[in-house]
């Protein structure tokens, strides 16, 4: 980003062996990086300064990353990406529920981290702020249920249906605009998430994958209909309910 002021990052990690080379790498990528070795140090830096984004290690002695993350999301509204050593589903849920915008699993590819930083900042700039963590409500359509927070789609029979993150965002786009024709560009725009390489992926392909999972007969789709003249529409009533605590 040559013309604008550099993006300011706060990197919080107790391991100097990782923190220092990562800070160095991110600086080379054009970010202005401040380092903190603990949550306490991060808090003291945050008192005087408001970085654009915080990179936060979860496992730290003393106050851990999750607690600091909650504070950042509630009190400061600073976008956060968690750095975690565990890749299990629980951590992901906890991470997103406590207000983190994204997470990477160690060992991550540095380039992927940069892509995610840009993606989170782009979403934050669009005014979404906390892009991933949606209000705690459930979407219900044709007996199906989607819990956006936990990214769980359940079929009318009550079975868990796996969908990829792109499919999830595509479905969210449809659910937020039921019975409206959404053209491919609009869908692409709404679906764009952390996957930077989505541009070269056809929306049609993603729609057909989603159909495969939720339509009774994916060759004769009834829920997600193709609209002549370029676009798709969710032909179902959507009900929003409060998620049980």
């Amino acid at each position, binding site marked *: 980003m040559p013309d604008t002021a550099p993006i300011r990052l706060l990197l919080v990690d107790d*391991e100097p*062996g*990782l923190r220092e*080379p*990562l800070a*160095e*790498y991110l600086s*080379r990528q054009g970010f202005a990086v401040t380092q903190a070795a603990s949550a306490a140090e991060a808090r003291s830096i945050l008192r005087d300064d408001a970085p654009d984004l915080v990179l936060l290690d979860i*496992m730290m002695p003393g106050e851990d990353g999750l607690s600091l993350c909650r504070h950042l999301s509630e009190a400061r509204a600073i976008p956060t990406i968690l750095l975690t*050593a*565990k*890749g*299990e*589903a*629980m951590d992901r849920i906890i991470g997103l529920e406590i207000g983190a915008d994204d997470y990477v699993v*160690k*060992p*991550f*590819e*540095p*380039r992927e981290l940069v892509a995610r930083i840009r993606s989170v900042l782009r979403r934050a700039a669009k005014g979404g702020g906390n892009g991933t963590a949606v209000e705690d409500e459930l979407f219900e359509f044709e007996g199906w249920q989607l819990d956006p927070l936990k990214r769980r789609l359940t*079929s009318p*029979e*009550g*079975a*868990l*249906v*796996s*969908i*990829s993150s792109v499919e999830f965002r595509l479905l969210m786009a449809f659910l937020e605009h039921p019975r409206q024709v959404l053209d491919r560009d609009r869908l692409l725009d709404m679906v764009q998430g952390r996957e930077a390489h989505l541009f070269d*992926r056809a929306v049609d392909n993603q729609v057909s*994958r989603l159909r*495969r*999972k939720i339509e009774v007969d*994916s060759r004769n789709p009834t829920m997600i209909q193709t609209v002549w003249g370029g676009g798709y529409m969710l032909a179902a009533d959507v009900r929003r309910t409060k998620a049980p605590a």
Partner: protein
Amino acid sequence: MWPRSLQGQLLLGIALAVLLAQGISAALLWRAQVERREAALIHTAAIRIVTANREATEEQIERRRPGSRLLAAARQLRIERPDASPLRPGDAREHEAEEELAEILTNQGMEIASAVVVHRPLGDAPRLAGKLARQAALLGEHGRPQPDHLLVAAVELKAGGWLLVRVPVPKGDPAIMASFIGQTLLLFALLLGAIALIVGRITRPLAALTRRLERFAATRAVDGQMPPEGPDDIRRLIVAHNAMEGRIAALLDEKDVMLGAIGHDLKTPLTALRVRIESVEDETERAKMAATIEDIVRSLDDILSLARVGRPSDPREPTELSALVANIAEEFEDMGEPVSFAPSERIVVPLRTTWLRRALRNLVSNALRYGQTARITLTRENGFAVIRVEDDGPGIPDADLERMLEPFTRGDPSRNSVTGGAGLGLTLARAIAEQHGGSLRLANRQGAAGGVSGLIATLMLPLG
């Protein structure tokens, strides 16, 4: 028929032993009774003979006494004075009884030449039999027991002539046998009742301990330990078992903590390394380094997963398997890999999705690595959801098929350095299948020409 439980075997064994002991003592008692009766009969006979002998000498003196004739007539019924031996051919002589009789009579001062004792049927003396029958009819049950046969005792007097008496032998008393059987049954009831109580005290905690062990083996949860109960030995067993359970649980916890620490402590420096190689100028060199790090990470993940697979922390949830398989196939498709998944019917199976994804990914990567392509099918067969991953590779020699599922084994060792990985992929996939109560099998696919045209990995998951 033979009981399998401790209680059953003990009870049956003791019942048999008691039955045998009772049988022996019944036989002994019976014999003693018979002997006693025999002796009593001989005594009766002896007394009659002595009396008759004495009377014979007194008879002349007392002949004139009134009523004596009647008395004598009555005596005639039981006492005879034959001239010759009453023995008939075929008579079985009771030698012991004869000796005893002779001895008693000699002691009483009688001089006898010989004695004969035999058993005869009632019909041998019809008048006596008639009298006994009338007596029995008159007295009914209150009289002496019904005679069975007659004991005939005769002695040859040294003075010449024989004296013969008939003593009715009563029937064997059935009441004695009945009381004996009753006594045996009572003994049985008491003994077996007491033993059942004692053994129950032992086996009840044993059965509870067995249930507890089975549950612990299945869940490895320490909660719900048994309080020590029962006899001291069992009590000690329970205490020892509880201690061992605690130790095992502690070891497992320790293992989890250690694995967590390894995961964290290795992944952080690996991340640092991954960051540092970004400064390597040479593009190819950097790509190689990145690939190596990725291999290490993958192995580490496999090892950590394999160590944790037996102790999953997440519950199973009903999951649409077709969507999940499609998901995995699409992941590989997105990476440009030739993976296909034929559309299938919807099958809902209780799953731990994180684990099953891992198993499927491993099967598909394995197919791609050795067989260039992966074709996935999903079907419902006999209560199982069956996922098949087929490739077009060289397959595996039949002898090695089973070994391939063992840890750290891989086909084609020459390619190890290129493909990387610790060779845990299939082991982990099988462990995950087993974690779900299913199984994983490998088989060679026979081509049309007869040779092996690829490998089929079959993952079966129970539907219920």
